[in-house]
């Protein structure tokens, strides 16, 4: 770094599937890096384990605050009232990407899929002759959770309430899950073992009319021959769709012997003029995001609007277990279980985690 010639940065890139395991092993073995990106859903666990540095005071002194970032991204780094990371990059699940040619052929107005009723009607009309209206998935993966969450959030529901109690068995969440259960009739078979990646394949080959992905999907679609566009999620009539935040925060490890240099590095990476050049998702810095989206994504204003309205996933040190229980619940629902009974059972297990 030209501004800090005394700081040398060694970057290690690790594929996502093994990243968390490698990082945890390094922390437990006392070989943690100085700085690492943490998936938003890991922050609480790392904070609870005292593995990362409390950045609350450092950020305040440096003038770094919530207003400079997407609110949901900033909130994903706050646990027990303290700040444990600085938002680095973000995205939101989900945008409903649609195949314009299939919509035109079926005479469906793309704007209609922004509402629960409209999406269901469109999915029904777009299903048939070996094609499917909407791509749903419920494999054991986080993409299952974030998409279901966004339907629940958009219907006014929550995963955990303000006291940390499971809210999945309350009316707004149950209604949203019933809606998804019904929508499954217009999705390709095999939901329980399907991922967003599987749905992408079907969308790209023209078998699927609507796929759910974050904005990260755009570079792939831009390289394809499809005539596509997107709308910002789906909500009941009269409501604004609420997405689920995804993304990464930069954290400094408690074992770091170079905390000062690490903090300088973190500040550098989230700077307005730098953040957009060092991310593959969307910069977490608001101003950097505006410039990045204008240059790299279709519909930047719509993306910004959806990001501004998104909710983070619950901040729990036992998030991974919570997520696993949610996946089981969604698998039960897509298997045809009674939604209220399945949600009650899931909430009993989730509340035991507290």
């Amino acid at each position, binding site marked *: 770094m030209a501004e800090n010639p005394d700081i040398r940065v060694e970057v290690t890139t690790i594929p996502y599937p093994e990243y968390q395991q490698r990082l945890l092993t390094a922390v437990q073995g006392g070989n943690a890096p100085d700085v690492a990106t943490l998936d938003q859903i890991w922050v609480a666990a790392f904070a609870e384990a005292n593995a990362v540095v409390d950045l609350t005071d450092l950020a305040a002194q440096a003038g770094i605050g919530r207003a400079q970032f997407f609110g949901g991204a900033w909130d994903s780094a706050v646990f027990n009232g303290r700040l444990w990371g600085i938002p680095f990059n973000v995205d939101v699940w989900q945008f409903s990407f649609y195949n314009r040619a299939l919509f035109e052929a079926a005479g469906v107005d793309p704007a209609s899929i922004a509402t629960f009723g409209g999406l269901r009607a469109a999915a029904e009309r777009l299903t048939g002759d070996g094609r499917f209206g909407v791509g749903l998935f*419920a494999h054991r993966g986080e993409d299952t959770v974030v998409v279901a969450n966004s339907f629940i959030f958009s219907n006014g529901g929550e995963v955990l309430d303000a006291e940390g109690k499971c809210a999945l068995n309350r009316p707004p969440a149950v209604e949203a899950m019933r809606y998804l259960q019904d929508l499954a009739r217009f999705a390709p078979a*095999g939901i*329980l073992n399907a991922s967003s990646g599987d749905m992408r394949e079907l969308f790209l080959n023209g078998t699927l009319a609507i796929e759910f992905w974050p904005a990260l999907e755009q570079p792939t679609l831009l390289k394809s021959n499809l005539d596509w566009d997107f709308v910002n999620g789906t909500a009941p009539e009269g409501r604004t769709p609420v997405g689920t935040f995804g993304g990464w925060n930069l954290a400094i490890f408690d074992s770091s012997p170079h905390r000062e240099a690490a903090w300088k590095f973190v500040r550098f990476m989230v700077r307005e003029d730098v953040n957009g050049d060092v991310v593959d998702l969307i910069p977490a810095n608001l101003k950097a995001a505006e410039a990045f989206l204008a240059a790299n994504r279709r519909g930047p204003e719509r993306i910004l609007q959806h990001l501004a309205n998104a909710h983070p996933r619950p901040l729990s040190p036992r998030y991974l277990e919570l997520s*696993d229980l949610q996946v089981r619940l969604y698998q039960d629902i897509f298997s045809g279980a009674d939604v209220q009974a399945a949600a009650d059972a899931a909430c009993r*297990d989730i509340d035991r985690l507290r």
Partner: protein
Amino acid sequence: MPRNDTLFHWLMLAPALAILGVMLYWPMLGTVIESFHDSSFIRPQPRFVGFEVYERVFGGRDFPHIVRNSVVWTVAVVLLQNLLGLLAALLLNRGLPGQGMLRAIVLLPWVLPGVVAAIVWRFMYDPQLGLINSLLLRVGVLEQTAAWLADSSTAMAAAIFAAVWKGFPFSALIYLAALQSVEREQIEAATIDGAGPVRRLVDVTLPAIRGVIVVNIVLTTILTFNYFDMIWVLTRGGPQSATHIFPTKIYEVGFGQFRFGEAATYGVVSILVLAVLVAFYLLATRSTAARRRTA
């Protein structure tokens, strides 16, 4: 044996035994100790809780499924793999033309890395793009595509089928070696006595390779019980735990959720089952060796 010789032998064995102890038995002992502690990433300091974690595991929703799935998976794969392996070995032992090529073709699934084979099968089972659905639809067996891996009633059978395909060449190879050691004179004598092919197989060939069959079954049972990559790639233990077996559950709890104490408990139960299987293996090899000595 003179006392000095015995001492010398033990001295020579000591480095190997020490390495074995450190590499194999110490981690195993560590797992047993860990299983009596509650520890996770967020509570890295292990807290002794006695049998509390065992109670949690045995009382959990998943445990009965995992035991049942492990039994179904192991028994089905072992039986089918050995049956198919034996049939393949009998075929390859007939001296058919192009035998070298045939052996290479039969061995191919076994040579493929486990993860690659699993990915291939995942594609083949795909409800929309998979070869299996496409074939079955074309010949009229199916009226609409089936989601083999996403349906709780078919996922385990689909995983078993793929595992048998991957594993049967291993059994075939061992049976082929055993068949080639069966004395020709015995077969010829049975033929002269009027025994047909089935009678020769049942009364001469199978008794002659009985020891190998037993050892092979025990060995494949141990390997199958520990088989991880096929199920993990195909279903990750889903849907709804329909294909979760001990290794996939241990991985999920230990490396997916970092609940080390609970993963260790599943590991100990798994070790106990394997210990029984190893005991069977040792008994089988001992009786085979004894038969050879008396023959």
